[in-house]
Each structure stands twice: as structure tokens, then as C-alpha cells.
């Protein structure tokens, strides 16, 4: 559970470059959520999530962030425990790879948490297999020799190996081709079986609509609201208010609906759309 109350954040306070990134943010992410955060560039999404594992510290008198039983606005939260609990995958995580073999790189996290060598090896093997790579084939290779998609998987494995209970993903599919995007999203669903809470920032409404159960919309440092996908993408007024684009499938459904077909306008996934079209065709 992550609970954010009245959180504000100011970059470079007391300089000419001062900018306020967050204004009075309140939200609650429950265990088991696939929580989406959307909003245009500069809305404060990354600043918000970097509070969740104390990479950005809560400023004085600027609200509270609570992760399970840990108060991150306290002076010295137990960072080791926090970072083992909250895994953070940044944009282009493959840029953080550094070690000479894939296995060593994935072991970096568990090693920092003080796992024994055997544990490290077991965790790394598990994580590499979970992200869909062949452990025997890649473990001893240099991460820099791998393809872009494989590198991203290795980087993901590096975070998964720490066995987090909450996984935060900042645009996990940025810069990948459509097939790569789909593979990574399917991978995240697989990961969710072992790491029950997932928080994802994304600009891709298709991903948000088909995977998230709750969505926070941010704009200029504020949270406009937290909705279920059907609430958000089913209501045109809300979409216009939040300045959010429709996912592709919802857009198709809406157009068909406008054209007179008997199709619901709040369709969120491809399967739903196919079913609806099939039904409509049969009906006609």
C-alpha cells in the first residue's frame, strides 16, 4: 500500500530556477493494484513516483508518503528495507547496465541487500528466467552485446531479482517496436504474479486501458483524479477535461457507435472489441 497525502515538491528552491513540480497530491495505491499514471510531459509523474522509494525525499512540511508501515517523510527511513520492497524501473533501464556479464549485473541488487553468494545466484537465475531469457545462453554474455529488447529484459531482471512487493515502471515500453512493446507488457503481467502491486507511468493509452485497474490523471503537478479505465475512457466529458486521448480500440468502438452500430462506446481491449463486433454483426 502506498499512501500519499498533501505532497508538494519544489525543484531548486530559493534560486531563479525554482519550479514547483507537485502541488498537494493525494492518492492511495492498494496492494494488488495495476495502477496507471498518465499526464503530459512535465506533469510531475516521474517526480511523484521517485518519492515512492525515497530517491526523492519528501521536503519539509510538504506532506507525507507512507509505504506499508514506513513513513518516508521521517528523517531516516530504513532505505535498505524500502528499496528491497519497492522496485523501480526507470525510463530506458538498459542504460544502467554496467557489469561484464548478464548474471553479475542481475546479482548487483541482491548483493547490495546482503544476500549470500548462493542466494544471489539463485535469485539471478530466477529473475532472468522470469523475464523470458534463456539463462544458460545469456548468463555469461556481456549485457552490451545483447539486442535492445534483451537489454531491457536484463535491466528488468536486475530489479526483479530484489524480490520487490511493489514494482514501479516509468514508461517501460518507450522506444520499442510494437512487438517489443507487447512482449514487455505481457512480461509485466507475468511479473505481477510474483510482485502483486504494479505502478506504471505510460503515454500509451492502449497499454493503460487494457492492463490497469485504476488510473491517476496528472496535469501540471496536480492529480486531477483517480478513475477506473471504464470511468475514464467511457466518459467523453472526463476525457476532454483531462485532455486524454482515447485508446485505439476505444476510438474504433466509439466511431462504430457514432455510425449507428450497436457497440458499447467504453470498450477497452481488443478482445472486447472483437466480441462486440461479432455480436453486432450477428445481430444485424
Amino acid at each position, binding site marked *: 500500500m502506498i499512501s500519499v497525502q498533501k505532497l508538494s515538491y519544489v525543484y*531548486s528552491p530559493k534560486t*531563479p530556477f525554482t519550479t514547483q513540480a507537485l502541488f498537494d497530491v493525494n492518492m492511495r495505491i492498494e496492494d494488488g493494484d495495476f495502477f496507471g499514471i498518465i499526464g503530459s510531459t512535465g506533469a510531475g509523474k516521474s517526480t511523484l513516483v*521517485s518519492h515512492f*522509494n525515497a*530517491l526523492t525525499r519528501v521536503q519539509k512540511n510538504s506532506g507525507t508518503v507512507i509505504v506499508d508501515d514506513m513513513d518516508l517523510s521521517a528523517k531516516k527511513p530504513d532505505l*535498505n528495507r524500502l*528499496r*528491497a520492497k519497492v*522496485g*523501480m524501473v*526507470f525510463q530506458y*533501464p538498459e*542504460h*544502467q*547496465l*554496467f*557489469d561484464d556479464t548478464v548474471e553479475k549485473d542481475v546479482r*548487483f*541488487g541482491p548483493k*547490495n*541487500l546482503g544476500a549470500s553468494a548462493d542466494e544471489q545466484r539463485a535469485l539471478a537465475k530466477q529473475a532472468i528466467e522470469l523475464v523470458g531469457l534463456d539463462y544458460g545462453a545469456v548468463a555469461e554474455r556481456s549485457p*552490451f552485446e545483447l539486442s535492445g529488447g534483451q537489454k531491457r529484459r536484463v535491466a528488468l531482471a*536486475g*530489479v526483479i531479482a*530484489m524480490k520487490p512487493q511493489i514494482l514501479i515502471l516509468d514508461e517501460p515500453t518507450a522506444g520499442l517496436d510494437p512487438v517489443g512493446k507487447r512482449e514487455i507488457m505481457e512480461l509485466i503481467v507475468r511479473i505481477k504474479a510474483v510482485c502483486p502491486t504494479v505502478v506504471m507511468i505510460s503515454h500509451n493509452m492502449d497499454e493503460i486501458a487494457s492492463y490497469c485497474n485504476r488510473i491517476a490523471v496528472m496535469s501540471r503537478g496536480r492529480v486531477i483524479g483517480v478513475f477506473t479505465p471504464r470511468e475514464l475512457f467511457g466518459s467523453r466529458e472526463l476525457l476532454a477535461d483531462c485532455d486524454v486521448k482515447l485508446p485505439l480500440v476505444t476510438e474504433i468502438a466509439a466511431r462504430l457507435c457514432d455510425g449507428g452500430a450497436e457497440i458499447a462506446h467504453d470498450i477497452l481491449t481488443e478482445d472486447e472489441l472483437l466480441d462486440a463486433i461479432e455480436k453486432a454483426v450477428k445481430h444485424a
Partner: protein
Amino acid sequence: MRDVTIGQYYPSNSIVHRADPRFKLVIMLMFLVMVFFCDSFFSFGFLTFFVILTIALSRVPPLKVLKGLKMIIIVVIITTVLMMIFYTDGDGKPLAEWGIFHIYLNGIYASIKLAWRLMLLVLMPTLLTLTSTPTELCDGLESLLSPLKKLRFPVHELALIMSIALRLVPTLIEETDKIMNAQKARGAKFESKNPFKKIKAMLPVLIPLFVSSFRRADDLADAMDSRCYRGAKGRTRMNKLHFHVGDVLAVLLWSAVFVCILFLNYNWLGWEFIAVLGV
């Protein structure tokens, strides 16, 4: 990582900010020479007055300028103390003595002057970087060095390398921050007191940083190539440097200050009041 002082430009619209960077560089060079000609407390005070005047005109908060002293304060203290306790005055009698250490009145004077000189030497360059963007400085330098082109000295290339380097400093800092955060999220610790451990802890940051720097350099070279960049020949600038009456006046004023300092130092005409002032 955010306290790195290169590229510390403080945006404002004062006359010091608007001044032509070439003239600022010339004045800076003159100033640096001047500082070494200062000898008496009066000449130091005289020069300091003009430094304070320039700081006031620049409308940069004085504390920002003084912050430039932060990195040399330890050097200043150490040199001043060493100067004070080892200064030997052949004529005078020491004020105090402990073994090989001794303090003379002239030693105290000399060490105060030394500290003053060091601080002046840092203050003006700090002000220069606070009031001019790195690009302006590079353009100014390129323009000042352009006579060397006659000698086939690659002035343009040098300026280009410098401006690319300066331009990428903030990018690299940002990148370092990002990678450090990514590794911190994986439990890395950078706060160790042991220097060897600290270096080892930096490896997971340095290697990705190198990789991305090479990638960035490659991309930049491709981008320049695809825009037909072929070096200095026949290249025009988007922002031509223009100087104004004020710039010339400023150089004249500082030249006058320079002459005054020289007079205070050498007293060519044997004026008595200078002899009185010159401690």
C-alpha cells in the same frame, strides 16, 4: 551532484550581463594581471572597490558571488597560515616565536595580502561565469583568438570543442544523476567513507556513463555530418557579437584602474602621497 559550479549562469538583464563577452574577457585578463601588480593595502582596497562596483552593477546577489570562494577557502586558510608562521623578516624583530615558527608584523601583512589576492583572483572569474553563458564565452574567445587563424591555428575547432564540452556538462550531470538513482534503487550505496570503497561504488555509475557518452558523441557526429558540417570555412554565425559604447567605456575605465594601480605600485613620478599610502 547539483552544486557543480561550471555553467552557473545567473540570468538577469544588467549591463554586466549585456556587455560584449570579448570585452569582458579582455577586462578579465587585465584584471588578473592587475591583481599581481597590487602591492599595498591601498591598491588592494582600490581594486576591491571596483570589483564591488562591478558586482553591484551585475545585480547578482552578492552571496552567489561569494559562494565562488567556498571551494578555495581551505587553500586560502592553509597558505595564509603557512605564510604567517614561516615568513622571515631580516630587519624586524619577531612578535612571537615557537621553535621554527615565528610571526613578524610584516609576515602578518604579507599573509593578509596573499589571502586578499587569492580571493580577488577567484571573485572576478566567478562573476564572469555568473554573468555570461558558456556559449557567449566561447564565441568571445573564438573571436579574440581569430588572428591566430593566419598562423593556421585551428581556432574554430578549438572553440567548437570547448562549446560542445561546456554544453554537455549539464547533460552529463543529469545523466549521472539518473544512473546514480537507478543504481540507488538497486540498493547501491555511495556514501561510504572509505575512499577505495567509494571508487568501487562509483563503477556502476561510471561505466554506463562512459557508454552513453560514446553513444552521444556518435549521435552528435552523425547529426553534424547530416547537416553538412565541414568546419570553419565559409561558416557564418547566427548570433554575431556586437559591441556598444558602454563596452568600450568599461575597457577604458578598467585601463584607467590599471594605470592607477601601476602608479601606486611604482610611483614613477615620486609623488609623496603614494609613498605614504604604500604599506
